[in-house]
């Protein structure tokens, strides 16, 4: 048997079948990885297809006016209702019918919540068609949808490219990234994880129009709406139409939506028009949107809470929490918490009561301090107190850790020093939440969602203390886990800090004896840390107030003086080391000392008293050397000095 005959025989047929199979696998791999359809639609479809038949209470269909509004895991956690968002970014209104048809193949008894916002713009592009169709299972529904959409798309579509999306997208081979190879369901029930959704906040007040007027629909809107209603009627689909509160600038667009609402209500369908209900929902157009069409995670939580209550009131779905077969919904909530925790506060997630009359306190600054981070804000009216939240960010991976409450401050406070477990060299973000109470209920106000950041340096060691042992100042401190060593600082009061000693952390007992003090002088001590990286020593902060070593007190000033020719008295004294300043007193007629001039010097050691007292022929003075330590002032008085006419 020749080689060719062998190849053409049965073995050859098998061989060629294997070749074709391998070729198909290769082409499919290319097709899959080069596809550029929005990965959110993959999550939406793959998540939907993984739901058990007839297990959903509702399916919420729409474009990107669904996923930033409806967080299904949160609603599940709150109510036990399984409402799946089949949210396909860029979904053309014309495709809603087909998506619903596809969904009803496995969820025939579910309520279908249909977003009418998709009727705003009837134009769509071929890439939008891909976003809708590429991850949909192959079926007659998909084929009819593509055919229908192709006939009305803004540009010509090649039917082949929907069977093989790489026909359109293969040019992006040089732009592929890891995400293009990842096809695993997130398990988040299509809840949004979009970065802008989580982290951004934009004011949309300028893009907002409200009207109750209606206008005639354009022919395409009318045709698509009629087609959709016909399908719903023929198939007896249980539907709820919803208009989500987007910021729509064009008045006629709002009027068109109003007209659609009117048509549907007149036809007896349930319509929930929330276009003008932002306030009722608690949405702020200043901060709850990441752009005019999409809520951010904070707005999403508010909208979800509103919608879940509406659905509970009107549709009475069974609470399925704990029921067999819904474990993945519980998991979805746990997973989603990991996503939203770094961007939301505990009371938001817990659906705590809110008072939106409490404005967001403007954060003035966040500065690093030797002891921690100092947050300053401008107080707002009606706040009983402020909760200060903080989170950290891993700069190398741009990953935020969950917000945590750092502490609270009184209602009249305007700053908070966060010292608890503040790590060095870490990026911290702080936000301040105004809180008040009413009838025992805690009400949280608005707050800055993003917060303000500070990068900490190396922290000073904790519990620095100063003791005297045999008249020698001894400084103690707690060891630091992050420092490579410690530096001890000292200064004579009124002068500059000097680093007087350094210890490597591993060699240090965290104690320093200072044998080199001059008796009778006040010293201040402080301890800082340092790090040693790449042959460079970086010194961290240390307490600038320091600890005072002043066992003997300041020396008292020694006075001299004279009566001047013009009758004024000139008082002089010696400089006192360590004094912050001097106070000059004069004894009055009753024998009491009266301060006639304070806070002199410390570089000036002279005072001329020009006040002439008629009742006395002599004047008695004393001067104190003052040592100021924090709010405390320690005065060391001189002996009295009497000046008379004879002293002229």
């Amino acid at each position, binding site marked *: 048997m020749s080689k060719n005959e062998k*190849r053409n025989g049965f073995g050859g047929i098998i061989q060629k079948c294997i*070749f074709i199979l391998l070729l198909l696998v290769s082409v499919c791999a290319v097709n899959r990885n080069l596809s550029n359809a929005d990965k959110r639609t993959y999550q939406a479809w793959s998540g939907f297809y993984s739901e058990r038949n007839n297990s959903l209470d509702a399916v919420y269909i729409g474009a990107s006016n669904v996923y930033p509004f409806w967080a299904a895991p949160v609603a599940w956690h709150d109510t036990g209702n399984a409402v799946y968002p089949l949210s396909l970014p860029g979904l053309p209104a014309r495709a809603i019918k087909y998506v619903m048809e596809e969904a009803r193949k496995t969820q025939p008894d579910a309520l279908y919540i249909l977003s009418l916002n998709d009727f705003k713009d009837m134009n769509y592009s071929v890439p939008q068609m891909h976003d809708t169709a590429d991850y949909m299972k192959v079926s007659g529904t998909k084929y009819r949808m593509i055919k229908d959409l192709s006939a009305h798309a803004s540009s*010509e579509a090649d039917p082949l490219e929907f069977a093989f999306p790489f*026909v*359109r997208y*293969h040019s992006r081979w*040089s732009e592929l990234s890891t995400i293009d190879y990842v096809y695993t369901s997130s398990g988040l029930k299509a809840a949004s994880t979009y970065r802008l959704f989580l982290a951004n906040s934009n004011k949309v007040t300028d893009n907002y129009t409200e009207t109750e007027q209606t206008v005639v629909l354009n022919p395409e809107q009318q045709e698509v709406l009629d087609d959709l209603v016909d399908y719903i009627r023929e198939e007896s689909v249980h539907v709820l139409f919803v208009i989500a509160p987007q910021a729509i600038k064009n008045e006629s667009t709002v009027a068109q939506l109003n007209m659609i609402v009117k048509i549907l209500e007149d036809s007896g369908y349930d319509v929930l028009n929330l276009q003008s209900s932002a306030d009722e929902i608690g949405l702020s157009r200043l901060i709850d949107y990441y752009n005019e069409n999409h809520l951010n995670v904070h707005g999403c939580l508010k909208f979800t809470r509103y919608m879940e209550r509406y659905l509970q009131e009107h549709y009475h779905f069974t609470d399925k929490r704990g029921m067999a077969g819904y474990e993945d919904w519980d998991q979805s909530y746990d997973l989603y918490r990991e996503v939203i925790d770094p961007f939301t506060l505990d009371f938001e997630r817990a659906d705590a009561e809110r008072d939106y009359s409490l404005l967001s306190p403007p954060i003035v600054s966040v500065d690093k301090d030797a002891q921690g981070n100092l947050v300053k804000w401008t107080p707002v009216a009606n706040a009983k107190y402020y909760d200060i939240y903080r989170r950290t960010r891993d700069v190398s991976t741009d990953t935020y850790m969950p917000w945590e409450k750092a502490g609270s401050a009184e209602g009249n406070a305007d700053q908070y020093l966060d010292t608890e477990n503040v790590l060095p060299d870490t990026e911290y973000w702080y936000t301040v939440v105004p809180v008040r109470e009413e009838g025992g209920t805690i009400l949280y106000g608005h707050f800055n969602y993003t917060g303000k950041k500070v990068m900490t340096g190396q922290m000073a060691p904790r519990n620095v203390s100063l003791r005297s042992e045999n008249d020698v100042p001894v400084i103690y401190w707690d060891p630091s886990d992050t420092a490579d060593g410690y530096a001890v600082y000292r200064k004579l009061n009124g002068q500059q800090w000097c680093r007087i000693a350094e210890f490597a952390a591993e060699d240090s007992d965290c104690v320093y004896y200072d044998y080199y003090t001059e008796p009778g002088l006040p010293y201040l001590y402080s301890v800082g840390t340092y790090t040693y990286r790449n042959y460079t020593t970086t010194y961290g902060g240390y307490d600038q107030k320091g600890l005072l070593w002043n066992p003997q007190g300041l020396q008292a000033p020694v006075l001299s003086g004279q009566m001047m020719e013009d009758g004024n008295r000139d008082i002089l004294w010696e400089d006192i080391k360590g004094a912050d300043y001097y106070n000059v007193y004069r004894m009055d007629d009753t024998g009491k000392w009266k301060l006639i001039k304070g806070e002199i010097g410390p570089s000036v050691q002279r005072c001329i008293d020009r006040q002439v007292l008629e009742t006395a022929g002599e004047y008695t003075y004393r001067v104190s050397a003052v040592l100021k330590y924090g709010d405390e002032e320690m005065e060391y008085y001189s002996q009295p000095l009497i000046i008379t006419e004879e002293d002229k």
Partner: protein
Amino acid sequence: MTFVSLAFMVFVAVAAALYFTIPVSKRWIVLLAASYVFYFINSRMLVLVLFVSTLITYLTAGKIAGIAAAGKNYLKENNGVLSKEEKKKYRADVKKKSRNALVLGTVVMLGILAAAKYYNFFAVNVNLLLVRIGFTLPRLNLLLPLGISFYTLQAVGYMIDVYRGKQEPETNLFRFMLFMSFFPQIVQGPIPRYRQLADQLYEGHSFDLQRILSGIQLILWGLMKKLILADRVGAIVSGIYDFSDSYTGLILFAAGALYGVQVYADFSGGMDIARGVSQIFGIELELNFRQPYHSSSVEEFWRRWHITLGGWMRDYVFYPLSLSKTFASLSKKSRERFGASFGKKLPSFLSMFIVYFLVGIWHGPNWKYIAYGIWNGIFIVCGILFAEQYASVLKKCGIDEETESWKFFRMFRTFVIITFGRYFSRAAGLFAALRMFKNTFIHWYDLSWITNGSLTAFGVNTANWAVIIVGIAVVLWVDHLHEKGIRIRERISAQPLVFRWLIYIGAIVCILVFGIYGPSYNAAVFIYEQF
């Protein structure tokens, strides 16, 4: 339905399926039907022009053959009756009648080509003269029938062969229609000879899987050259040529070189597809390229580039001209005036010059193409004219022409001349090409365009440049292997199964991923399809 469309692949598959399912003797009918369907899909009612041209050629050849046969019969019947003088006179009359028929057929065929392709060029240039007397020729918006430049030469060559008695005329009109319309070659050649192609078309070929797979390999190779290399390079070439006045220095030469890559990958890729498709049906088309960039002279380049056009010009223009009485007379006179050596070569020079003038104008109705032809003609004629002096100089300089370095130098020199010639064929016009010449030598030493981002300013990023460089390297490597006589497809077939499959699947995946096609791109039509 271009060669690089999925529709064409499906079309070929359906045609092949039909071809191999009907009796062998009738299989040519499938090819005829497929060819006319293909032509109709691409050109709609212009298929009538093809049919009329076919009919004219068929009738002319029949007439020529008829005159010759009648003359032969007459002489045979009157063998003893006619005197030698009468026979000679009769033969001259027959030949004259045949020639008249040939001239008529040729003029009509070339007339159709001229009207469709060159009329407006003629009118525009004549109007420059006529405008002074207040008269202008109107311009016509005629559609150019697909492949007219190719099938017209094919038809004229066929008629001349019949006239020369080298070829019996085809008596079956439908079979002749197939010869004139065979779909893989009608778009951009190769320009076939009847004796080389016709029998293959008519005989009917059996199903041979190995041959079909070999054809598919050739198609894949052609697609790779066209879609991955030619169209990718085309973006850069257009970016520079379309704004050529904005550039100075060697970037213009680089654009010319890249255009050379583009046109080679495009044309030879198209040829490979045509040959691959033909192979599926058991038909071997003539080679149109033989590693042209391995040429050591311009003259050799044109023997390796578009071989069937060169062959056609040689057989139907060069030899008839250079061996004509007129040129012989001219040679005689010039020998007397300029010496024996020059006078002997003069007919060749003139014929060569005319051939390249025609090659130039064949490419299109534009002065730039005429200049393109003349550019090549000048170098070829000079090469012949100064061959002795050149050899003498080399000898004096002690240069061994057999060394690899000298061979490489000659290849490089040819490449440079050909590249400068590309200025004419690709530039917007003759004057634009001349300006490019001038601008190439302005700041030619400034090579900052290599690093300053100019090369990635045409929508071709670094990754795409990498594909281009690898693509050029692969094409050169394959050419090198061919030059050494290695038959790559046979080599691949001899490899272990896994290796073969890796190559096949890899080639397909490369085309799918790196090819310039689909809605994201405006895939370019084949360059020679426009000629």
